[in-house]
């Protein structure tokens, strides 16, 4: 089996709206596929189809080689879902939520309690295990939700915008857990609106817009295509702009641009930025400000949709 998740020509309409319009996706076993796109791009629809909650109008979706429509029951045995709206019961405690899931999946009372306890510990919820989940913070809810989707360890885990609305600490914590699961062999499909998140977690990224995959590849391929990291420097005196651009050019060979009162230097990784900075400091050029910037999703989209087909071919893996 080449792909643990395989989607071909998937179409799904809601009335006049084509939520998915011929989407293709593939994730090799044990890898993370990031589905990157803005609101309304079709991410959640793809998640619902893969987790057997929605039947596509056309195309096929396979999870571990099983068709999500014909073999829906078998897919449910091996897939875990964390939806965008936390699927936890706010009237139950965190521990009760996990026990319920375990019991529904066939665990005995004591097995269910043991497993719930393990997950509560692992997801750092011990202090709130017996409190009603309705009172949990956003980060705690997300952790409980993720714990609930791995009660019986799934072979494929689908996460729909798992960190939207979370503070940076909770976000990093959740990323750690996802990495651990992948290390244990789980294949993950993750939707996100954040390029950084896809970059951090995904082995491959598919950029989705209006129900179609408009670009796909590894994070570095994608970042190269959209410009990747940019080092921005503002000299203390405007006259030094030209000299600064020359220094940056000399260092890495990438083409720096002068934008307003700044020099923008595309770099492949933070190490290159450090090298450029070292040149600038050595040359004795005073800087008023500098910073390293990730391209935002907006910039990715502008680049990908603004350049047409050529750009798409370049990015295709």
């Amino acid at each position: 089996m080449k792909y643990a998740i395989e989607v071909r020509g998937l179409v799904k309409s809601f009335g006049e709206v084509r939520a998915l319009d011929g989407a293709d996706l593939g994730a090799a076993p044990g890898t993370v596929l990031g589905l990157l796109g803005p609101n309304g791009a079709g991410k959640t629809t793809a998640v619902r189809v893969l987790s057997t909650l929605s039947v596509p109008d056309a195309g096929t979706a396979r999870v571990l080689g099983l068709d999500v429509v014909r073999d829906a029951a078998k897919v449910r045995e091996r897939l875990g879902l964390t939806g965008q709206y936390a699927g936890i019961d706010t009237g139950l405690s965190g521990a009760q939520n996990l026990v319920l899931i375990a019991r529904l999946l066939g665990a005995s009372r004591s097995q269910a309690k043991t497993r719930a306890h393990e997950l509560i510990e692992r997801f750092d919820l011990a202090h709130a295990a017996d409190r009603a989940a309705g009172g949990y913070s956003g980060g705690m809810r997300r952790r409980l939700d993720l714990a609930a989707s791995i009660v019986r360890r799934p072979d494929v885990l689908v996460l729909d915008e798992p960190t939207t609305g979370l503070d940076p600490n909770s976000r990093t914590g959740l990323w750690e857990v996802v990495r651990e699961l992948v290390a244990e062999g789980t294949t993950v499909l993750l939707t996100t609106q954040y390029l950084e998140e896809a970059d951090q977690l995904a082995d491959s990224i598919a950029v989705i817009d209006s129900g179609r995959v408009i670009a796909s590849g590894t994070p570095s391929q994608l970042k190269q295509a959209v410009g990747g990291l940019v080092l921005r420097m503002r000299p203390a005196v405007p006259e030094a702009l030209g000299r600064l651009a020359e220094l940056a050019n000399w260092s890495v060979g990438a083409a720096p641009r002068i934008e307003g009162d700044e020099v923008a230097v595309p770099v492949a990784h933070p190490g290159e930025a450090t090298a450029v900075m070292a040149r600038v400091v050595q040359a004795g050029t005073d800087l008023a400000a500098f910073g390293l910037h990730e391209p935002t999703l907006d910039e990715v989209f502008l680049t990908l949709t603004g350049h047409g087909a050529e750009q798409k071919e370049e990015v295709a893996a």
Partner: protein
Amino acid sequence: MTTTTTWTTTRGPLAQAASMTARSLASIRHQPAQLVDYLMIPMMILLSITFFMGGQMMGSWQAFLDYAGPTLIAMGLFFAIVSTGLGLFADIKTGVFDRLTAMPVSRFALLAGRVAADMIKHLWALLIVGGVAFAIGYRADGGVLGVAGAAAAVLLFLFASSWSMALVGLTAKSEEQIQTWMVSLLMPLAYTSTMFVEIETLPEPVQWWARVNPLTALADTMRVLLAGETPGGEALALLGWCAAILAVFVPLSLRAYRRKLTS
């Protein structure tokens, strides 16, 4: 890293339904005030109609309580079946059912768990409100056996009719819509039966309907049992109605569930 516990057992739909029932009742532990909520509708209907209208209808409220007390309780509980619809609606809205539907869990168990939990709430309300009726002076000629029989008849009917509310909860667009169903369907159904009026007092065109109304079958069966008599045709009519309601609404609810959550 923790060790991953795995188990290979599976449990049948009934065991899964029992887990769902326990889940629906577990929230009581965090919000015990719910226990009072379940009583309010039947309690208020019994007390207000008995005390404020009973005297006018039958000369004294005591006489009215003897005639209509048990059926008023049944009517109050009948209005409470709307909770099955509201509960399912909430489960779908919050996303809880998305997760459960993506799991290898019987769809019947998810719905039956809710209905069963509501039945336990109805039983609780029946015990308390029935106790109140006893406290203010209601006595049945049929004794304990008659009361138990009448209670069983009520619970059977509530069980069947709860499935109609399951369908409403799965197809409604909003909570308000579910409440509207209660007012526009359950109330007329109750008022055109022998729940607390005699058939002869109803307008002529309504009388034929009152005779076949399932709630008339329930009221008549309860009266026969409470009087200590042997039930006959009215009990058969009640059983027939319950079977018919289940035969229609269980499959319709399951179909509505599939359409709502996997379409």
